[in-house]
């Protein structure tokens, strides 16, 4: 009832992720300048792209929540932003490793994509504290949705401003558009990207199914035993929405 289609989706995700890694290690050529380390690109860039798309998706579900008042949309928005935050940490860490290996520094302010990603991450890091500090669940959902929408609109604007702040002659060696990538690299990259996107969707659906099932179970128990019998105190404090 809650996990419809999850089995197929999980299998597909496993196949694609394994396939992507096989392509990365055995098919894609080593980069002429950077050698083997360049292969972190196939992990780092999909992580970052999927995280940003997840943030924007959180904003879109925020809009849908405000329009319909359906708490399911709030839950979807929350899970999307939560997962994206985790992926964003991964993207920042892998990006740092790559920067150390290829430019010799852990962090550089010259790369606009890096800087704007950090700003977006700092902004979204406030999402959970915001939810924590509002007790009333209905108001928490509404305010979180407003935040998700504002931040979602901020993502593209911020990228534009930071990119313009760099001098336009700065060479974009590590362009992600794939303009100068050879075909085998582009294929590997695309498979990695789709695999990562599927992984995100799968995890998102698992989390939604798990949360919905928990709430449904609690509601059913309450119906059987009465409201006071099955009040389940949250064992761990969480900012997650309850239905």
């Amino acid at each position: 009832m809650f996990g419809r289609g999850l089995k197929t989706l999980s299998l597909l995700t496993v196949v694609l992720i394994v396939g992507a890694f096989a392509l990365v290690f055995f098919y894609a050529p080593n980069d002429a300048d950077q050698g083997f380390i360049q292969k972190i690109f196939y992990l780092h860039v999909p992580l970052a792209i999927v995280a940003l798309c997840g943030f924007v998706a959180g904003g879109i579900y925020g809009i849908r929540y405000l329009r319909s008042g359906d708490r399911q949309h709030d839950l979807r928005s929350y899970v999307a932003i939560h997962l994206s935050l985790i992926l964003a940490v991964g993207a920042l860490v892998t990006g740092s490793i790559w920067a150390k290996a290829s430019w010799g520094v852990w962090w550089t302010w010259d790369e606009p994509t890096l800087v704007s990603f950090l700003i977006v991450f700092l902004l979204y890091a406030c999402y959970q504290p915001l939810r924590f500090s509002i007790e009333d669940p209905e108001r928490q959902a509404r305010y979180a949705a407003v935040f998700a929408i504002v931040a979602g609109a901020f993502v593209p604007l911020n990228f534009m401003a930071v990119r313009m702040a760099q001098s336009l002659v700065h060479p974009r060696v590590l362009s992600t558009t794939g303009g100068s990538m050879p075909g085998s690299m582009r294929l590997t990259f695309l498979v990695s990207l789709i695999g990562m996107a599927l992984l995100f969707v799968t995890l998102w659906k698992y989390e939604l199914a798990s949360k919905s099932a928990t709430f449904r179970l609690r509601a059913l128990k309450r119906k059987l035993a009465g409201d006071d019998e099955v009040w389940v105190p949250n064992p761990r404090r969480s900012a997650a929405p309850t239905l």
Partner: protein
Amino acid sequence: MRRTVGAVLRKELRLELRAPQAVPAMALFSVTTLVVFHFALQRGQVDGDLAAGVLWVTLLFAAMLGTSRLFVADHEEGGLDGFLLAPVDRTALLVAKALALLGFLAAFEVVAVPAFGLLLLGPTPDAGAVASLVVVLLLADAGIAVVGTLVSALAVQTRSRDLLVPLLALPLLIPVVIAAAKATTPLFLAGGAEALPGRWLAILGLYDLVFGLLAYAIFDFLLEE
């Protein structure tokens, strides 16, 4: 709508005039920050991009003080409930509060910017540079006022509002800082002021427009009870 905005705006300004709170605090804070910059940078004078950076950090952090207090009195004294009971358009509150914050920002900058010029700025700007600076200040203040009002309305209902306002507002305002600092750097050059780069003014204007429309569309949901 216009009458409501006028009434709320008059009330805000009257409150601030009778018991000045936000503007003196922001002005004092900005002057203190300039002194801190003098010692932290160990410089008597700054110019160029360093001057622009010092000015915008000072103005932005001082603006956070006024922003976090914007809705507190209304929230505690029941002004918000009173406004919600009145049969008026709720967006009027956003417009009035943003205009009030814009007024407060302009008022404290009348103190802060000349203080910056006296205390830290090396080259003396001519009339043209001052006029350009006023344009940049106005555009940046509009963005700070809109985003500040939105964040302040969001944070006032939470338990940790004084913590949340700067945490939420500063990342959102980074594009304003980038554009404003880039636009004011040529005005403070040691070899004499250069022309204002139009590209950064356009970015500031675009930011104001996008967040103005966004705030207009979304503000209702922050007031619903």
